[in-house]
């Protein structure tokens, strides 16, 4: 009983109930509070132009490249089913990217406003939430990259499949 009272009195619980947060951890969070908030603010501010630039490029790839090629192939009576499907999947992935980033941005904005000295455990949990949501944004970026590569591959397969018609000009 004496050892328990000396070593750890009423440890706080973080998100994972199986890993209670010790007083030393809480003190560390409190002492790192200002630098952590400054770092988070910097990350949050730098994320915005990255998102804007990427969002713009992703949209332009869909709107000015994929859609135009698919339309041109269809007008020339080629079967562009696979390309259309990939472009549709790409648009769905783009929406997911925007949604994921919005949720992440809202979480970060709330996190930066948290008083980590008064609520160290809440702050720690909020950082874990923000990390999970940032991971979702990252996953959405990977998915978009995969679909960009897929579309590139679909074009190559299309060229192989229609090599005869492409050599002779437009179809029909």
């Amino acid at each position, binding site marked *: 009983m004496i050892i328990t009272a000396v070593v750890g009195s009423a440890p706080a619980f973080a998100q994972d109930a199986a890993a209670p947060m010790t007083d030393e951890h809480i003190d560390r969070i409190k002492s790192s509070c200002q630098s952590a908030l400054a770092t988070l603010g910097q990350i949050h*501010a730098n994320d915005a132009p990255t998102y*804007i630039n990427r969002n713009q490029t992703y949209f332009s790839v869909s709107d*000015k*490249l994929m859609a135009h090629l698919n339309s041109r192939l269809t007008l020339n009576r080629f079967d562009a089913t696979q390309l259309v499907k990939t472009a549709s999947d790409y648009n769905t992935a783009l929406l997911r990217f*925007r949604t994921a980033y919005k949720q992440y941005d809202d979480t970060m904005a709330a996190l930066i406003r948290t008083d980590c000295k008064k609520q160290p455990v809440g702050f*720690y949990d909020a*950082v874990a939430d923000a990390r999970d949501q940032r991971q979702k944004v*990252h996953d959405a970026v990977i998915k978009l990259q995969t679909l960009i590569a897929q579309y590139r591959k679909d074009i190559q397969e299309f*060229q192989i499949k229609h090599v005869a018609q492409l050599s002779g000009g437009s179809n029909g």
Partner: protein
Amino acid sequence: MDDLLAGHQAEQPAAHIAWYRQQMVLFVAGSIAIALFLVFVSMALYVSSGAAQLDLSRPGYKNVQNKVDQSDTFESFSASGTVDKNVLDQFQKLYDKQTKQVDNSDAFSSSALDDQALGIDAPAASE
């Protein structure tokens, strides 16, 4: 009789003035209420549509405004015309060039928010 009529006539302008004043108050209050409602609606749309994430005029983003690519240099591909091998080769080159900007996969890596990176990780247990 004349006094009664004069009194009645004096009350009418006063009643009209009171009525107009009441209407004016209601008009101003109603205008303010409608304006507040429309501001609420526009703010809700601003947040829910994702426009807020594209707005770098918000506080705290002034230093990063110059990092946004504001030039419209994205080369488009024509949606009309013939299709042959050369056209598709041109498209491939254009596609590779434009997608090069988003080729890196390290964007929004969660490691930036690691406990160690923020200095909020659990201290090592002392022996």
